[in-house]
């Protein structure tokens, strides 16, 4: 999901996939925040990660 504008159907599907059944009013309330979050997350999609592995533990125990 990387488009700028998200319609209610997409929000509903996304919520359902995540296991939630929110009302249209609840989804509409978060629409602009979801759009803003996804715009920010697009930054992650644009980074050249090469062969960098995910960091699951930061420090030597």
């Amino acid at each position, binding site marked *: *999901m990387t488009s700028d504008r998200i319609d209610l159907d997409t*929000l509903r599907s*996304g*919520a359902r996939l*995540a*296991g*939630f059944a*929110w009302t249209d009013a*609840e*989804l509409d*309330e*978060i629409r602009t*925040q*979801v759009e803003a*979050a*996804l715009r*920010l*997350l*697009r*930054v*992650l*999609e644009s*980074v050249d*990660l090469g062969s*960098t*592995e*995910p*960091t*699951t*533990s*930061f*420090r*030597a*125990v």
Partner: protein
Amino acid sequence: MPELVWAPVTELARMIASKAVSPVEVVRAHLDRISALDGDLRAYITVCGDAALDAARAAEGALMTGGAPGPLHGVPYALKDLYDTAGVRTTGGSRIFADRVPTVDATVARRLAQAGAILLGKLNMVEFAYGPEGLNPHYGHAHNPWDATTPRMAGGSSSGSGVAVAAGLAPAALGSDTGGSIRIPASLCGITGLKPTYGRVSRAGVLPLAWSMDHVGPMTRTAADGALLLRVMAGYDPADASSSVLPVPDYPVALTGDVKGLRVGMLRNGFLDAAAPPVQAAVEAAANTLVSAGAVLDEVKLERTSLAAAGALAVVAAEALAYHAELLRTRAADYDPEVARRLRVSAFVGGAHYVRAQQVRALVREEIDAALARRDVLLAPTTPVAAPALDERRVALGDGPSDVRTALLRFTRPFNFSGHPVCALPCGFTQTGLPVGMQLVGRPFDEATVLRAADAFQRLTDFHTRRPVM
């Protein structure tokens, strides 16, 4: 004898151990002050008055019979209401946990008790630690004590911890820091807050926001007090798989007051330059103070910290939702509506986002490590503005306007993402008398150098000794 409610922890510990003052006097002085002021300040959710006095009497008795006092014997402190306390409710700042009474102490609470510290009570906070403003609709917003006329944010999420220490309602408190929640209230309330290296202090028994971003640390009026508390709190805990087996240094001994040759890297681009002018001026002056004491200053440009905002969003969102999913399905109406909205947004962060964020995390950490390979500490403002008014939603920064929430998190969150240790301390005041904070970032597990630099700054200045007029 100093006024007991303003004495540092190190001094209280010394006075109590030498029997110059009774723990009962110290605890009673704090309880009286809480009674007088906390109705307005709302730093506390639960005050453990009777238990604290009982513990103080026991501590006094132990001293009279010649028992060897622990390093914090008889010294009162308070806990963010995120830390489990056996027999004392731990609400997480939420109505959902209003009656939740743990049966086991959090590890750090147990360690502080073993060192002789006395719990005054449980402190106000943003619900489930999910916010930097310090607002809580269930228990009341904690009020910043530095402005008696305009209600101002204390910062969060450890809002009560910041207010209690700043206002003399506790000589020390514990907070937690997932995106800045120790350092933001430290900055806005004019106190010293330490976010240790990830894994330095056990998180066992602390309600999580995001497991891989949560840090536990002390909030005090001096770096020396922070060093003493960290010495007691830090160390491996089998109950926390992320806790480090690295030995715990004697942090108080490291506080030599000497910064000759200390290599300080100023974070200007994206940090100092983005702060509001009064903050810029105070942090620049602080850097000059360190230089005048022999530190060596240069400038550092971090290119990758801009990735930290996106990465931290993905990690916190995914991990917070993992913890809250069931509660969000069954108790949604009982959440702070703002926290509920943030959790709902989290549902749209996918697994691939989360994994990419963890890859980006390695890159961000690598860059900060490289900067610290040639320097001892990095210096930056803690927050780009001083305390906003409670109803303020947008602020003017050095690089343009911003919403308050994003602004408050901007300079702190990268170091939760990377896990480096950071000490936030006051470095000045605005023209209207609001505290300004700076942060010192160190190498992993080098809290000793970070605290040494902070303590040395506090020996050269008096910002940390000023008190709000209440």
